[in-house]
Every structure is written in C-alpha cells, then in structure tokens.
C-alpha cells in the first residue's frame, strides 16, 4: 500500500506547512478582515472535509485489508446482499447535515464579504477605481485626485471599496492577503470590499488569464498607517505630473509599463462603465460616485477606443 503511505506523508507535510508559522501560505495568512473571514471559512471546510475523508479512509482500509482474496478460504462464496435501508439512509442523512452546515456558513460569510467589513461601518469608505488593461493595473483615487499604475497605497483601518472594470479582456483583481478576487470587465463596474489591518507590502495580481503578458500582470500593495498614507498623498500631489488623455491612451497600449504616478484621474476623460456609462443595464442602480460631466458621445468614444486595437 505504497500509495497510502505516500499520501499520508504528503498530508503530514501539508499539515506542518499549514500550521508552521515560518512561511505560512498567503491565503491562510490574512492581513485584513475579509481575508480573515475567508481563511476561517477555508479552515472550517478543511476540518469538516478532513472528517469525511477520515471516515472514508477508515472504511476503505478496513474493507481492502479484511476482504482480500488472499485472506479468505478458497471455497468462500461472497453472499448476495441487496443493500441496507438503514445504512443507506445514514449515508444520505449525514452528508445532508454536513452540506446544510456548510451552506449556512457559506451564505453567512458570502454576505459578510460582500459588504463593508464588520466594525468598519461607521467610516466613510475609501473608493478606488481599479481598472485593468493589457497587462497592467490603473488605480484612480477620486477622493485624493491622484492616479497610480501598477502599485497601490492603502491606509490601515479604513474600509476600501474597489470599483473594478477593464479596458480589455476580463481580468481578476486579487490581493490574497487582504481578501478574495473579483472580475474586472469592460461593460460594467464590480465592487470589491476590502480593508487592511496590518501595515506592510503585499502581492496583488490579475489572476484571470488575459493573453501573453498575463503572468507579469502584478502590482504592489503598500499598506500604511493613516498618517503615513496622508503623507504619501501629499508627496504625490507635490511631485507627480497630471495625467492627460494622451498619456493615458499611451498607457493603454498592450505591454508592460512598470510603475508610475499622476495627479488627476483618467475618470475625467474616460469614465468607468457605470451608471449611464454602463454597457448594459442591470436593472437598478450602482451607486453614482462618478460625478464627471460626461455625455453619451464621450462614452461611445470610450468604447470605440476599447475596440481599436
């Protein structure tokens, strides 16, 4: 039974890796409330499922050890057994209970991660427009009126709402240590709620395949204390150049561009596809944070621009 030993060894290694604190796996090393919720859900599901695997493995090992032909008499005739109502009801009922339990956990936590993180409700969220283009990320801070490319600065202890959309293929915005991912698409804006508790530098990336430069479509996330964050904003405002439409169109061309910083945001001349700019209407409104005075004409220009690759 080499395979079982191999499996057990691997499982053991995993367990040590999961619990060992030296170099914990990113997803299980949360630095914000959303990622923490998700790590909890993952651990709950791992333990529940470990129980299921254990039951199956015990039965399995028992069956193949005890009933192998080499351990039976030569003339042993296995009996004809139709089944057992009681046993079959048990292995329907228990999985239903497990699934019901996990369903409750899922529904509760899904609602949680889709809202402003708990304990942050009293604060005004920091809204950041995160848009992708082949193969980079543009971050617009309307509140601060600045824009960065391929890196993010975030304050701790403040709820953050990312408004996600794309100037090209579907991309997925993901900062594993702050929380799960969501798609950025060309014809609508998705909202991702995150928050960071611990200052530090984290990895962010596009995790949805989007063409040949996809592997390097990453960005740095710098989480700072609110004071340091304000300092950083002031510094940008003092030193960076304003973003112009030409400059932005230059940036949109496929390729890798490294990091850069601007004052102003591209939302002024190239608004996000939300509200009246949305590609298709999903019934009721996404909240209108975007107060640019764009007209439909501008929007159609914008979508044509998407198209002219």
């Amino acid at each position, binding site marked *: 039974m080499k395979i079982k030993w191999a499996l057990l060894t691997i499982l053991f290694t995993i367990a040590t890796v999961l619990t060992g604190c030296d170099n914990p796996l990113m997803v299980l090393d949360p630095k914000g409330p959303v990622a923490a919720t998700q790590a909890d859900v993952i651990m709950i599901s791992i333990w529940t499922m470990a129980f299921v695997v254990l039951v199956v493995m015990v039965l399995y090992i028992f069956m193949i050890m005890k009933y192998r032909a080499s351990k039976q008499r030569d003339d042993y005739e296995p009996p004809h057994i139709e089944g057992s109502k009681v046993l079959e009801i048990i292995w329907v009922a228990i999985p239903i209970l497990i699934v019901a339990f996990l369903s409750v956990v899922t529904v509760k936590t899904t609602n949680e991660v889709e809202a402003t993180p708990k304990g942050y409700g009293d604060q005004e969220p920091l809204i950041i427009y995160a848009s992708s283009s082949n193969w980079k990320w543009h971050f617009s801070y309307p509140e601060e009126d600045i824009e960065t490319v391929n890196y993010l600065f975030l304050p701790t202890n403040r709820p953050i709402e990312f408004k996600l959309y794309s100037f090209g293929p579907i991309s997925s915005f993901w900062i594993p240590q702050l929380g799960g991912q969501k798609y950025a698409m060309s014809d*609508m804006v998705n909202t991702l709620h995150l928050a960071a508790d611990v200052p530090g530098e984290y990895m962010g990336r596009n995790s949805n395949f989007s063409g040949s430069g996809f592997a390097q479509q990453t960005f740095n996330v710098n989480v700072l204390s609110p004071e340091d964050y304000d300092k950083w904003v002031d510094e940008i405002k003092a030193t960076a150049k304003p973003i112009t439409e030409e400059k932005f169109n230059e940036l949109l061309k496929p390729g890798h561009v490294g990091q850069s910083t601007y004052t102003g945001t591209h939302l002024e001349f190239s608004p996000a596809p939300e509200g009246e700019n949305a590609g298709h209407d*999903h*019934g*009721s409104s996404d909240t209108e944070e975007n107060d640019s005075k764009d007209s439909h004409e501008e929007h159609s220009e914008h979508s044509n621009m998407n198209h002219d690759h």
Partner: protein
Amino acid sequence: MKELFPRGQVMGFAFSLVLTLVALSVIMFDLSLKMAMIILLVTAFMQAALQLVMFMHAGESEDKASIYTNVYYGLFVALVTIFGTMLTMIWGYQ
C-alpha cells in the same frame, strides 16, 4: 368528408387560434409588463402542449412514458437555462 376533419383536431386548431388572439391582446391593450409576460408565457406553454398532444401524437405509441419523460426533462432544462441565465446575467446584480 367528415372523416377527413376529425373533431379533436378541428377543436384543437380553433383553440390554438384563440390562444393566439389572447397573446395578441397583450399588445393591443396596454398591459403592465409583468401581466403581459405572464399571459405570453402561459399561452405559449399551452400552445406548445397543444401542438405536442394534438398534432404530433406524443401519446399514441408504446413509448409514451419515455417520450413524456424526455419532453419534461427538456422543459426542465429549458426553464433552467432561460431563468438561470436571467438570474446570473441580469437579476443577480441588484
């Protein structure tokens, strides 16, 4: 001559014309969208059932049970595809 026009089929035809008129009335009278959709869906389903039973002889062969199972399963998949797609593509973003 009479045997060429079986009563059932003539009645079925008349009924399907009535159903069409009902469906058309939705456009004639300015009904609310919800009402209109309900009427259209109900008449469309009755129409489809009528065609299957009356004119396509769904129930006359030895495979009646299999044929009905197949059609019901098809309808289940159709409803799931249509309403599921509406749910994931439109209604799910409220």
